[in-house]
């Protein structure tokens, strides 16, 4: 086994992705070959990566390895500690199933867009995410991070003839690079404080850094990685960029890529920076609560299936941040076992969200490929046309709505328990934040259930609302295989949550600021109990309980009623003819909740009426558009943009268009720098 976790295996995995990328590029004129080569190699690489990272999780850390370089600061080194291995496992798990899905899904791009390019960037994207999770040098990390951002950017604008994709891509590009600027700033501060760019050395050197520096690093890392994770109000790129990409890429972006932001937040706040401050955790709790609540409310108001799912990513990132925030608070208060519990909750939710969000995006991709529209109002009745996709989507919906006995429920349960411990053991002000976080989490899961009743009900149930949808058919074998795999993962993660918690407890315990504390105790029958029996749960028992009860009641009812018939009739329509237009719409479904939250959401409605006559007595066509005012754009990004334009207006005067002038600027800068050098030495 030790042999399996050697660095050469890791390089081999990277080589498989490289082969996939170049192979797809080489066969770019032959769509089928490019598809098979690109995606099957990606699947193979991911499978190997999954086994590799799983072995690391079981066997223990792999110490830093890699090639140095002639530059003193950049060293191409990797380290697979438990945290890295965990994130690599999440990446590879989702990438594996997404690649299988892509084998069938990509077919509908044949002849329309270059499948070779897709395969190239797809492999590059997965490989760069693995590098991000495993790199051991800040500079190398930045390079991997940038490759990841650029690869995903090209995937977002893959459908390049859609202007919406291009716009989404540009927004993503700008936001992610603004974020990177903050990350660079944080890294520079670290370098200044420690004189090294290797993670381990930085972590050791940070002990002497002043609180001011540590706070500054945390804030800029929070902003920088927060953009990638999609916390509110830095989320604006997310709902437009994720849906624009091909669905298996959306699944990866939403399920995995945004988690790389979480990965670095965990690493920086719980390992690299020694002794976190209380207020970091509180800020994360507030941001997490706000992101989860607002994310789900925005999702409710969406009628574009993929945008809806993208907003749910924001919500789930919020839930993860609740766990992480709790962990930081506990760690700063010196309660290591509680910190381990809280972090285990966050990591478990990270894993869970990756599985069910990927499943939902893949399901949405199948639906969209079958119906050629993303507008949820046009769907309906797909459960009869695509029964298996519907079942998988239902499993995903139930998991994301935190319904037992699936995995989403367990990680929210764990998050709740961590927050409860905060309510018990902390002082009054901190406690208040925790109580509100509990409330936010409770409301969030309720609203998520409402949102997925809408998403699943309007999409799959009732009757088709448009002609195109009634001709839809079940997707191919590979997509269904991938979705089935994710569904099984969801069920297994729910059932064997006890084992997963033990594993995550090890991951969390390996971090410096938690110091080996155990997250939860395991008792018989796969049951998990936290804090010496404050709470305990056994997911298999819940699962078996529901199953047994359902079987028993079905048997009893069957015995009682076996002589009675079941007749198929038309839906009760009060005697009038029922048309699909009479079914509830997604807008109608969620409008009541939006109206309740109108203070926060600022709903808008525009009425357009065309009249028959000039006196406007007889309306011909009426159209009401209901939506939301974009608060973030109006109050944050628009003013920011105006300010930038204004500043840019001043700076155009500097831009003469004359090369000589530009070189003169360089010259002046050089001289000025010399002066500066002289002054400092």
């Amino acid at each position: 086994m030790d042999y399996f976790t050697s660095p050469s295996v890791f390089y081999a995995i990277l080589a498989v992705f490289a082969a996939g990328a170049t192979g797809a590029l080489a066969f770019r004129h032959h769509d089928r070959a490019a598809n098979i080569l690109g995606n099957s190699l990606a699947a193979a690489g991911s499978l190997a990566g999954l086994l590799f990272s799983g072995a690391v999780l079981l066997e223990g850390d792999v110490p830093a390895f890699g090639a140095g370089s002639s530059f003193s600061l950049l060293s191409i080194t990797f380290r697979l500690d438990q945290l890295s291995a965990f994130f690599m496992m999440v990446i590879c798990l989702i990438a594996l199933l997404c690649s299988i899905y892509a084998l069938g899904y990509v077919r509908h791009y044949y002849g329309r867009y270059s499948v070779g390019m897709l395969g190239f960037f797809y492999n590059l994207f997965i490989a760069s995410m693995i590098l991000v999770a495993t790199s051991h040098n800040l500079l190398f990390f930045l390079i991997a991070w940038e490759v990841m951002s650029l690869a995903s950017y090209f995937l977002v604008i893959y459908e390049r003839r859609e202007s919406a994709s291009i716009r989404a891509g540009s927004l993503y590009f700008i936001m992610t690079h603004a974020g990177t600027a903050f990350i660079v700033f944080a890294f520079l501060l670290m370098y200044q404080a420690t004189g090294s760019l290797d993670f381990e050395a930085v972590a050791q050197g940070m002990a002497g850094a002043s609180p001011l520096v540590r706070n500054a690093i945390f804030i800029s890392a929070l902003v920088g990685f927060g953009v990638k994770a999609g916390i509110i109000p830095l989320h604006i790129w997310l709902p437009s960029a994720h849906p624009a990409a091909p669905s298996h890429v959306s699944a990866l972006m939403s399920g995995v890529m945004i988690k790389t932001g979480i990965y670095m937040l965990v690493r920086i706040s719980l390992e690299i920076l020694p002794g976190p401050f209380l207020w970091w955790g509180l800020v994360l709790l507030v941001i997490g609560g706000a992101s989860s609540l607002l994310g789900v409310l925005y999702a409710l108001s969406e009628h574009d299936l993929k945008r809806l799912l993208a907003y749910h990513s924001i919500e789930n990132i919020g839930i993860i941040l609740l766990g992480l925030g709790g962990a930081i608070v506990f760690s700063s208060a010196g309660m290591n076992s509680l910190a381990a519990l809280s972090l285990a909750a966050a990591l478990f939710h990270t894993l869970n969200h990756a599985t069910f969000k990927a499943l939902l995006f893949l399901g949405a991709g199948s639906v969209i490929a079958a119906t050629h529209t993303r507008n949820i109002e046009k769907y309906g009745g797909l459960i009869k046309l695509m029964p298996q996709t519907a079942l998988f989507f239902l499993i995903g919906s139930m998991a994301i709505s935190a319904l037992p006995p699936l995995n989403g429920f367990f990680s929210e349960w764990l998050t709740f328990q961590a927050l409860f411990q905060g309510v018990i053991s902390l002082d009054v002000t901190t406690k208040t934040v925790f109580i509100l976080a509990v409330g936010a989490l409770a409301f969030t899961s309720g609203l998520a259930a409402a949102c997925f009743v809408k998403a699943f009900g309007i999409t799959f149930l009732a009757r088709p609302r448009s002609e195109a949808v009634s001709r839809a058919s079940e997707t191919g074998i590979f997509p269904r295989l991938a979705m089935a795999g994710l569904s099984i993962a969801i069920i297994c993660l729910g059932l064997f949550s006890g084992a997963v918690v033990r594993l995550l407890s090890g991951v969390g315990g390996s971090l410096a600021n938690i110091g080996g504390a155990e997250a939860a105790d395991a008792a018989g029958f796969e049951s998990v109990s936290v804090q010496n029996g404050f709470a305990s749960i056994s997911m298999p028992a819940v699962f078996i309980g529901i199953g047994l009860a359902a079987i028993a009641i079905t048997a009893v009812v069957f015995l009682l009623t076996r002589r009675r018939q079941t007749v198929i009739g038309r839906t009760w329509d009060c005697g009038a003819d029922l048309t699909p237009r009479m079914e509830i719409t997604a807008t109608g479904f969620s409008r009541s909740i939006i109206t309740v939250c109108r203070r926060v959401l600022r709903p808008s409605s525009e009425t357009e009426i065309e009249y028959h006559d000039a006196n406007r007595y007889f309306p011909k066509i009426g159209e009401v558009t209901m939506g939301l005012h974009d608060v973030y754009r109006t109050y944050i990004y628009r003013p920011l943009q105006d300010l930038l334009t204004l500043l840019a207006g001043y700076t155009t005067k500097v831009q003469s268009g004359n090369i000589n002038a530009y070189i003169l600027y360089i010259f002046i800068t050089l001289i000025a720098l010399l002066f500066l050098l002289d002054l400092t030495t």
Partner: protein
Amino acid sequence: MTQTIFWIIQILLIPVLSPFFIGATRRIKARLQNRAGASSFQPYRDIWKLLHKDEVISEDASWLFRAAPYLIFATTLVIGASIPLMSTALVNSYTGDFLVVVYLLALGTFLLALAGIDTGGAFGGFGSSREMLVAALTEGGLVLSLLTVALISGTTNLMAIPQSIGSVPFSESLPVILAFIGFSIAMLAETCRYPFDNPSTHLELTMIHEAMILEYSGKRLALIEWSSANKYLIFITLGANLFFPRGMADSLELAPVALALAVFLIKVGILCVAVALLESSIAKLRIFRLPDLLFTSFVISAVAVGLVG
């Protein structure tokens, strides 16, 4: 051996008794309206009749519509086995966590709401929409009110909570009382009683719960009616045994448990009277006034949690 018997009683008690308490509540309401009303055992007859009737299912309905009643009923059975009924010595550490109960209830609501949409009728959809609105906004108050008693007793296991709540001195029972108020509001919302929903309405436009089940008939309607009766009794039981746990047995001897069962019936009866009185004395609220009430429940419960410890 006795333990096994008690467990069987525990599992069967809720489904066996629940139609009676629904019937009793209706009868008390009828009396308050100066009517004789149907017998308290009327719901048993209704369920029996429905089980012996044919079923008509819409051609637009899918397997979800067919499976939902069984699953919903199953969740109430599991919850029934997870809540304190008669003895605090009986502890279910597998599914007894209050979050399990809250989320199993949410699972039932989720499935029922989907079933409401499934047939493509005009009423089912908005019934689901309203139900989810109420259910989503109830969650906060429900979780925090139950958290209050959980924190006081130092465990979130419902079956272990009553023991220590019983020993809280009256002078320190303010959080319990506040939590009970928050819980009651959440209970009325979850069980579709006044002022949230009219359980006996015939007007489609004012329905919440009823609108979703308009399409059900025969055995599946029986199951749905029975599960909502179960849900009602579950909430009443939680209210009675978590917040007023006096009279619960603390051992598994036969005599104290029998006594505890009697006390339990009396407590539940009193709460049913209270619900009936409340329903007879207030009007149903406009749907957009409901969130205010639910947020009130949340705030009261949050204050209660804050006061603990």
